[in-house]
């Protein structure tokens, strides 16, 4: 399996690893049977993602995707973070092997789930899973 240098960099030294005990939103996606579980934690301040962390059970691409996804959404408004696609995660990683693209999809889904968890806690309606095209 050939990974880009960026994937290896984020796999070997992942950013934002760890649990967040006072998270405002948590999203867990994946399935241990498939070998991937991603849990994304968000800290929200004034509709902005002040902090993001992750815990991941999975391969090199899954860990690197989690790391990159959390980097991409930090400092963004919830609306902006919602629009971070799996393609954007994969591109930021300088590409993923086709068979590993599902890892970037998990990262996108994990962010969506965490945002909707926050929205629900705020009494807001969850957003639709598919973002509108910009």
């Amino acid at each position, binding site marked *: *399996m050939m990974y880009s240098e960026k994937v290896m960099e984020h796999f*070997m030294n992942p950013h934002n690893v760890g649990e967040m005990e006072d998270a405002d939103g948590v999203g867990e996606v994946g399935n241990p*049977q498939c*070998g991937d579980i991603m849990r994304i934690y968000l800290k929200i301040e004034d509709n902005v993602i002040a902090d993001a962390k992750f*815990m991941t059970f999975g391969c*090199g691409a899954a860990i690197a995707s989690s790391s990159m996804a959390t980097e991409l959404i930090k400092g963004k408004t919830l609306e902006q973070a919602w629009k971070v696609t799996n393609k954007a995660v994969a591109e930021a990683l300088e590409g993923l092997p086709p068979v590993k693209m599902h890892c970037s999809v998990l990262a996108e889904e994990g962010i969506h789930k965490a945002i909707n968890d926050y929205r629900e806690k705020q009494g807001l309606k969850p957003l639709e899973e598919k973002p509108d095209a910009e």
Partner: protein
Amino acid sequence: MKNNNKNTGNTVYLDHAATTFTDPVVLETMLPYFTENFGNPSSPYNIAHISREALDKARQQVADAINADTEEIYFTSGGTESDNWAIKGVAFANRKRGNHIITSAIEHHAVLHTCQWLEKQGFEVTYLPVDKYGQVRTEDVKRAIRGDTILISVMLANNEIGTIQPIPEIGRIARKKGIYFHTDAVQGIGQIPVDVEALNVDLLSLSSHKFYGPKGVGALYIKKGSRIDNHSHGGAQEKKKRAGTENVPGIVGMGAAIEQAISQLEEHAAHMKKLRTRLLEGLLQIPATHLAGHPEKRLPNNVNVIFEYIEGESILLMLNSFSIAASTGSACTSASLEPSHVLIACGFPHEIAHGSLRLTLGKENTEDDVDYVLQIIEPIIKRLRAMSPMTPEELRK
């Protein structure tokens, strides 16, 4: 503490079940057959006779290694071709007698995919289950046999977990019923004694690059009198059963390698067992770690462990960053996204099977290599578990 082996450089190579380096002595033996002794063995002049004699010698070396006659050795391109030929060849040649084949659920894909292909051609295949150690039960073999069973194919030793199968017993059952019996001995040869008479087999597959010979060459043992279709049609090579100019340098290399492997078998096995015991004892001290395969009836060079809560490819990538080459049965190294069919057949749940690590030792490995791996691996496991949401609290510290 790093390996500085002349064959593997700075890499601590622990993937000998995948392939081995070509032994320098073997390579030396092969070299003249690329250059000055390049004659086509089927040609009538002197330079061709040299190639012909080299083929004869290699055939003798392979026959001697497995207690067969030279007439019973057919050179192929490797284990996959040998498995394909054995199974398809016997299946089609004996179709009038029946169309049922028995194999095990943990065979190499060269056997499983061949059987699956035969199912599409109208054959029926029974895939025998295995116990938790990956062993086929002879009772299951007996139960699976039908009036129309023509072939049983069970591997000598498993490539992932190293479990050695009760081949002599299965062979006895097959012989009593007049059913052809094939064994894939690709992983076994050079590690444990392989004697076609003692094993009661009619067909046996070998691959040269698993015992320090070159890649792209193998052999199929076919017991005299066996009814088997020809592999390919064309020239009269390999007693008219497998057409095509022989890979003379490769075959010479295979002959030299198998002779060396057999002459060093006891010494090699003792060295492997010593290293394996040390490696396994160290690995099993890591909490939530399981041994895969049989604790005793396993290849002397095979270690297969499963670390709960983490995924195998991540372990491999981290080991690679410390110049350690290993293997995993996790789905993430393949396109299938399904973990090893072998580990699943042994009863490991999917989520646990994903955390497998296979370390297969070779003759260049040393105790220093083992100690280096043990020193490196524990922090890797801890680090990966620390970022896994599945890891229980007590293992995260």
